[in-house]
């Protein structure tokens, strides 16, 4: 017998993401799903952002396949942090995030960053309950990335172009990254920063405060 199903395969994930979002909204927290390939500088961006956040109360959910190095780095800066180990999964899903929500003092926070597993592909597919997605690309990864991994560029509200201090050492064409990214997503906001030197960080933080309506 034929049975009609007509259902999105990721429906269960989306449903839990909506539940997470309700919990965040009730606590008045603005949530960012922070994504990038491995080594682009997600944790460095968090460190810089936390150091220069002004009055913003920040919490962090760290997602990694294994280990707690990133959570320890964030913990040293004195903000609430909880680690998720995906045990092999290449992205965070809404259920993994749901399970750790009770471990953060959400009522005392303005902004929560969910640092996804380092991967330019899969994290863009799975909603976790965020208000917006922000991605990091380091110029050392090369200017071909927007067209090779279009989905993440299409889904993100902001692109943090990191490691611009390396511009003279690598052959990346920043103009091409900008042009291709804007073709894929005309609304995206692009920040050129160096998490090493701090260049460009104030612009990102003031945009973050404006978008989140906090601080």
């Amino acid at each position: 017998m034929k049975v009609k199903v007509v259902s999105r395969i990721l429906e269960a994930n989306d449903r839990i993401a909506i539940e997470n979002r309700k919990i965040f909204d009730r606590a008045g927290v603005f949530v960012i799903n922070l994504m990038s390939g491995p080594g682009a500088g997600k944790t460095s961006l968090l460190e810089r952002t936390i150091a220069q956040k002004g009055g913003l109360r920040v919490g962090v959910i760290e997602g990694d396949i294994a280990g707690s190095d990133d959570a320890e780095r964030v913990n040293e800066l004195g903000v609430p942090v909880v680690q998720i180990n995906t045990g092999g999964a290449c992205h965070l899903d809404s259920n993994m995030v749901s399970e750790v929500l009770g471990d953060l003092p959400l009522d005392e926070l303005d902004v929560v960053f969910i640092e996804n597993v380092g991967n330019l592909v899969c994290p863009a597919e799975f909603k976790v309950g965020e208000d917006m997605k922000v991605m990091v690309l380091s110029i050392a990864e090369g200017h071909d990335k927007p067209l090779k991994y279009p989905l993440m560029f299409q889904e993100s509200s902001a692109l943090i172009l990191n490691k611009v201090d390396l511009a003279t050492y690598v052959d990346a064409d920043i103009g091409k990254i900008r042009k291709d990214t804007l073709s894929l997503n005309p609304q995206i906001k692009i920040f050129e920063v160096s998490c090493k030197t701090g260049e460009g960080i104030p612009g990102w933080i003031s945009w973050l405060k404006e978008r989140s309506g906090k601080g």
Partner: protein
Amino acid sequence: MHEASIALSLLEIAAGECNKSGYGRIDSINVKVGRASGVMPDALLFAFDAIKEGSIARNAVLQIEEVPVSGRCSDCRKEFTVDQEYVLSCPLCGGGSFTITAGREMDIIDMEVS
């Protein structure tokens, strides 16, 4: 890359529907996967075959229909379908204002149960 978790969600939904229908086994499942969905059909088949063992769908065949990327241009007001996974400009008039109407699907359509 995440085809295993997609296969797992697919199996959960299909098994739930099969139980609801009162039948005890799934013979086939038809799904639509858009070319811009990030899912590789071969990897999805592989993952599905690996996880279906011991489940209500252990004998099920997964049939995947690939959906190309389509869009509608608001400059030339025409509809288009392309072979690539993404569209940077309208392939008909070169305009930049268009909406993607298909190609991101990841849907279960129906299944055969007995």
